Each structure stands twice: as C-alpha cells, then as structure tokens.
C-alpha cells in the first residue's frame, strides 16, 4: 500500500452563508477501507456529494491518482472511477438484475436489446464478486441486502476504483453484514479503494484500515484503526469529553418502586418470552441489532401491535391495551423510531403536533380551549429548548433535532409514568443530542420510568442503568451499569453466547 488514489484538500462548501464543509482534507490509499466517521450533520454526506459531482465545492481540490480533476456531474464521477452506493437503493424494482446493471447502456443487436448477451455478461459480473444472485431475477424479489450487492456490482462494473458506501449496513441483518464484509474483502483484493461511512463503531473496527473523523463540517483527525479505540473516536466526534456529553446523574435505584413489569410477552415469529421490569427513575436500555424485534416489543406493550400471550403490569395493575389510546390514558408514551413517518404530522404546525396526543386535557365541554393548549405549548417550548420562530410554523420545516424535541414534547404532554424512547437521537445533530440527553436525564430524575431502545452503543452505555440485549426476538442478555461495554453488548446481540 501507500499509493494515494484520492486526495481531497481544503474542501469548502457553503449553503446560503452556512458552511456545511469548512476545509476538509481526506485521502484514500490504494486498496484500503477508509472509514469516514461523524455525527449527523457533520458533513459526511455533503463531502460524498462533492466527490460524486452532485455538489460543486466552493474551493479546494480533488486529485485522483495524482491528477487534479473537476467532478461536475455524476457521469464525470463515473468516468473518474468513482462509484457511490447511496443509503437508499436506486434500482428499478420491476426490471431484472441484468436489466438494471445495463440500464442506460443496453446491449443492442439488430435494433433490439440482446437479452441473452445481457444476462450472460451480467452473470459474469456478479460471479466475479462472488455474489450469489441470478441475473434474471426481478429486483423486487431480492432482499435489501441482495439489492445492495447489485448496486455494488453495478458500481464496480463502471470500472469503479473508488467505491463509496454510505451507511451500507443500516438495514441489514447480521448475516447480511457478514456477506457484505466478504464482498468488501474481495474488492480490496482487486485493489479497489473503499470509503466506508457508518456510525457503527463495532463495524469500523471489523473492516476499516483507517478512520477519519469530521465534526461540524471540519476535519478533526485521522487514526489508524488498529491504534485507536471507541472512546477516543466518540470523543472526537462529539468534541467534548464523554462524561459531560452524556449528562446522567446516576442514583441508587434499589429502593425505587417498580413502574412496569412485562412477563413472558410473546408474538410468534417476532419475539418470544420477553420479561423485564423497569423502576421509577430508571433508564432501561434495549440494545440489539436492527430487526432484532425491539421496536415490535415496544409497539406491543403500547397497544399498537397485537401479541399472543404474556402480560404487562403497570403500577401494580395488570393491563392489556387494544390500541394506543388506552395505553396513553394508562400512562405509557412511545416516542417512535421514525419521527417523519410515525412521529409528526409534518404539514401541520408545531403547536398542533405538541398537543395532538393530549387533547383530552384541554377540553372545555366539547370544544378545545386554546388557552389551555397555549400554556402547555409554551411550557414545552421552554423546557425542551425548541428552536422555532413560532409554534405556528410547520413541523416539517424544523431541523431534525428540533423535530425530535417536538415529538418528545408531544409525549411528555400526555404525562406518562412510563416513557418508551425508540431511537431517540437518530438523525439528530450533536448539539441537539446533547440537549436531548440532558432532558432525558431530568425526566429520569423526576421519577419517570424510561425505556430507551437504541442502536447507538455509546448512548446505551453512558445513559442507562441497566440494559436488555435482544437478538432475533429473544432476550439474550441483561447487563447492569458496571458490566456495560461495547464488546459485552455485541457478544449478546450478535450471538455466540446462549442465554
């Protein structure tokens, strides 16, 4: 190694006066996997879009194999050997794999598409990466992971020597991640260089050679993966020491009352024999891989998804909810994982969203009292430090962090005893994260029992009193504060240890 394939220096990019990238340096060596790490809003995607020709940088240079290039559009990026695999799959679902691979460069014979030749060449391309997918399969019939592999094959087939993977594992199961890693290894053998974007620390340590961290559009540093550790990288990402970032005042919970107990909850095929209890003032973490069934468990407790057996005991009373309305009245709140799809009515105002789940508190006979609503809206604006011009602007126009605060506020307004947070900081920038953590800490101090489902191990480790680990719909581990570490959690989450 040692030969530099790509060198980006002093890249700046501003949007209406605000610098999304403020002088980033990045270099990539031949055949290396270089991880690009940063919180949401740090500028990872912007940097990649500059490389892919979607954005033009304000200044800075891009050198590929030593020669300076200008990448003005996607075709030029391809011409320079750059292939980008976006988070969202961009294949046509109702065409075959082969048709997708040759989309826009069809093999023509006698004025029509030569399907036999297309399939033959596609099969070759797929086989060369050791992928097991039929060239004549319909893309819609493939799993997400397989579709992603098709994307990779496609990127390489354009003579891609620099492949960028943007959060490639975000929707993959454990096995699929393994497959992806095998392909990455094969690409390395072929001297393809890879920029790997992910915020999953454990993956980076698995496959990357070097890690570059960026924060708020600025370059923070580059480390050899073998010479760093997760704590150092997280501290680089958030720009403060971890103690003050995850502001949690732990206290002794041995005297605390049980708020909710779940016994043997089962929904066949999704999760089985789930039992745990959460006390007042406790933050109980739920760790595990995506698709392990954590969100489904929470939705079942909340009455948003049916389950077959088991029971939920809330404040000493056995309860069973047929719909979320009953759960809300009983004192459970669920901040769902996808705030845009499940959390907010984006086209309506912040005020509308903040009060939607708690309208029953503001009634004056059959009419809603604007005055009562206003009091609540104002108090949550202040308490959660929501940054918006007014409560009447559309929720969809707020930043991710402020949207998340609105969702949280909506649920706090229902005055819950048990607050379930599903991925509370997903897609939120560092500062908003910091504020959300301090709010969550306050809530725990007030005695609310909090369940926090999260895929971000640092926040699980630093915020939670106890952690349940879920794998394939079963509880595989229960760890208390002093047993918590990334390795320990992953051991239970990824298998290898039987509970």
């Amino acid at each position: 190694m040692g030969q530099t394939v790509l060198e980006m220096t002093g890249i700046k990019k501003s949007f209406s006066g605000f610098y999304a990238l403020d002088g980033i340096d990045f270099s990539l060596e031949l055949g290396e996997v270089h991880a690009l790490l940063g919180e949401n809003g740090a500028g990872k995607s912007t940097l990649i879009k500059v490389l892919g020709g979607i954005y033009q940088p304000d200044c800075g240079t891009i050198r590929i194999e030593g020669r300076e290039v200008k990448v003005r559009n996607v075709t030029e990026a391809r011409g320079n050997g750059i292939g980008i695999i976006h988070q969202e799959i961009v294949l046509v679902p109702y065409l075959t794999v082969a048709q997708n691979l040759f989309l826009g460069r069809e093999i023509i014979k006698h004025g029509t598409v030569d399907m036999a030749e297309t399939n033959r060449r596609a099969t070759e391309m797929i086989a060369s990466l050791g992928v097991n997918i039929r060239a004549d399969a319909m893309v819609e019939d493939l799993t997400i992971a397989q579709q992603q592999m098709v994307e990779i094959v496609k990127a390489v087939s354009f003579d891609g020597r620099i492949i960028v993977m943007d959060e490639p594992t975000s929707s993959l199961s454990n096995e699929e991640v393994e497959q992806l890693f095998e392909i990455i290894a094969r690409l390395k053998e072929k001297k393809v260089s890879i920029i790997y974007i992910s915020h999953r620390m454990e993956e980076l340590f698995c496959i990357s050679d070097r890690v570059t961290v960026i924060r708020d559009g600025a370059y923070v540093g580059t480390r050899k993966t073998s010479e760093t550790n997760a704590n150092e990288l997280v501290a680089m990402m958030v720009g403060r020491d971890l103690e003050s970032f995850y502001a949690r005042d732990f206290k002794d919970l041995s005297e605390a009352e049980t708020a909710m107990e779940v016994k043997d909850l089962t929904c066949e095929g999704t999760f089985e024999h789930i039992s745990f209890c959460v006390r007042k003032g406790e933050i109980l973490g739920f760790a595990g891989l995506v698709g392990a069934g954590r969100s489904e468990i929470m939705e079942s407790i909340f009455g948003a998804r049916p389950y077959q057996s088991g029971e939920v005991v809330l404040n000493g009373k056995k309860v069973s909810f047929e719909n979320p309305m009953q759960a809300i009245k009983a004192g459970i709140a669920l901040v769902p994982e996808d705030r845009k799809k499940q959390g907010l009515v984006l086209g309506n105002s912040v005020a509308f969203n903040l009060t939607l789940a708690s309208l029953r508190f503001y009634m004056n006979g059959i009419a809603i009292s604007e005055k009562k609503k206003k009091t609540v809206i104002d108090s949550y604006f202040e308490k959660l430090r929501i940054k918006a011009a007014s409560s009447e602007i559309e929720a969809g126009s707020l930043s991710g962090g402020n949207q998340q605060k609105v969702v949280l506020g909506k649920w706090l307004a229902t005055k819950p005893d048990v607050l379930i947070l599903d991925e509370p900081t997903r897609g939120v920038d560092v500062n908003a994260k910091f504020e959300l953590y301090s709010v969550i800490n306050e809530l725990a101090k007030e005695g609310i029992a909090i369940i926090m489902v999260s895929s971000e191990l640092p926040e699980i480790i630093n915020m939670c009193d106890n952690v349940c680990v879920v794998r394939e719909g079963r509880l595989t581990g229960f760890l208390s504060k002093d047993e918590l570490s990334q390795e320990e959690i992953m051991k239970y989450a990824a298998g290898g240890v039987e509970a």
Partner: protein
Amino acid sequence: MNQKNSKAVGTANPFVAVFKNNIGILGVLVIICAVVTFSTDKFLTASNIISVLRQISINTYIALGMTLIIILGHIDLSVGAIVAMSGTLTVGFIVNQGMPMGVAIVGGLVLGVLAGFIDGFIVSTFRVPAFIITMAMMNICNGIAYVYTGGQSTRINDDFFAAIGMGYLFNVIPLPVVYMVILILLISFVLGRTKFGTYVYAIGGNREAARLSGVPIKKIEIIVFTLCGLLSAFAGLVLCSRMYSGQPSVGDGYELDAIAACVLGGTSMSGGKGRISGTVIGAMVIGVISNGLNLIGVSSYWQSIVKGLIIACAVLLDSQKDRLALLKKKR
C-alpha cells in the same frame, strides 16, 4: 411576551384569518364578479345575489362533507348518487307509499346515512381505496333511484314539502341559504374547535403518527363518511322540494362540483390540509361562473367548457402560489 404570543395564534379576528388564508381564491372570486358585473347589469342586484346564494347552497352542503373526506385523504364519488337516491325515494315514500311526511324525510336521510356508513366502514376496515368503493356505491345508489322510479319523474303537490326548499325566512332569505349558513357554522366549529376535527387533520396528515398518538382512526373515518352521506341526503331533500318532484337524474355531476369547490378552496387532494371557509368560497366561485354565464347568455354547452377552463386556471394558479411566495423570498 405572553400576550404577543397569543396574538400569533390568530385567535384575534376570525374574519381577518379567513381573508388571509383564502387570499388567492378570494382574488379569483372578485375578478370573476368584476368581469360579470361589467358584462351585464343584471348581476349586481339584490335578487340575483340571493338567487346565486340559493343556487350554491345545495352544492355547499355536499362540499362541506366532501371537505372533511378530502382532508382525511379520501374521496367520495357517491354523493351525487346519494342526492338522487334519497331525494327520489323521499318523494316516492310520500306520493307512492303514502307515508307521513316526517317519516318519509327521516327515511330518506337514513338511506344517505346508511350509504355513507357502508362507504366508511369498508374504507376504514378493509383499507380499500375510497375512489373504488364510493364509485361502486355511486352505481348502486343511482341504480336504486332508477329502479324505484322506473326512470320516471315523480311529481309532488304538497305545500309543506315545497316549503322546505322554496320557503323564506322573514320573507327575504331563502330557507336553503339559512340551512347553508347553519351548516357552515356547525361544520367549521366541529373541524376547528373539537377533538374530532383535530383528529381529521391528523389522520389526513400522517395516518401512522395519528394512530400512535391514540387517534381512533376507524371511528373517525366512519363518522366522516356517514356525515357526508347525511349531508348529501339532505341536499337531495332540499333539491327535490325545490323541483316539486323526485327525478332519478337529479344528482348527476354533484360529486364533481363538490370536489371542485374543495379543490378551489385550497383543500389538498393528498389530505391533511383544507378549510371550510375555502370550500365555501370555492362553491361561490362555481356558482358565480354558472350564474354569470347564464346572465350573459352563453349556451349551456359552452358553459361547460368555460367552467372547466376557469376551474383549471384557478387551481393551477393556486398550486403555484407556494412557488411564487418562495421566489419573492429568495429575492
């Protein structure tokens, strides 16, 4: 600080709010009125204005229900057929079956409620597109009206029945206009000030978020479709009373006029957005166009074309409003 905030909520003056929210379509209404006024001096007379209001009242009843349905993110194509079914059967119940008038009227309204309820029940329970199921209901209700009457018009000579649609309040204001005002106030209150109304917006804006927020989606959807059926049946009753007869073709095209009124008034076809005030003004625009073209003496065949063009232009203008506002901001 607090006072300043409460003003921003817009509770200050409902008339100002109506004006501000509907500035686009109000502009269209003013322009059309101006054009008609210049073309004929028969337009701007008290008797003509009252007659325009009476003409739009039937469409407005239906459009009020349709607004709720469209905000929910659905559509109801069966309203015109419900108008015909309920209207002709009510008249038929009195004339052919000899039922007491009160019973016949209630019977007609119940038919509309039933049709709406079935629409709503199927849409919310089986998640079938409302477009399809209400289209089926349209055929069924139309069919019932034709089967019952054998395609013939049924005449009714009853002063009290005629008074429902032809009577006046204080000898000046036609009763249909009185009903219209009452219904507008009622539905505005329900949509703007109650939990039910808030939930209608929430379901149309983001169904999943509404569900997780404890909104009883199925119940709300059934109520809205049922309400729309009731309003359509009521429209049928008033319409037949005004015509002294029950004709099975009486409701033709009413669904499209109602949808046009909603869309002109800024109700989003994708759900979640819409205002009663907008719909009412939209219905006025349609009413003034028809009335104006009649006064000017445009043949009814041409009227259809002109009406279509004006509606298309108005909607196009309205859809570009956001873009225009954005352009201004950029500058």
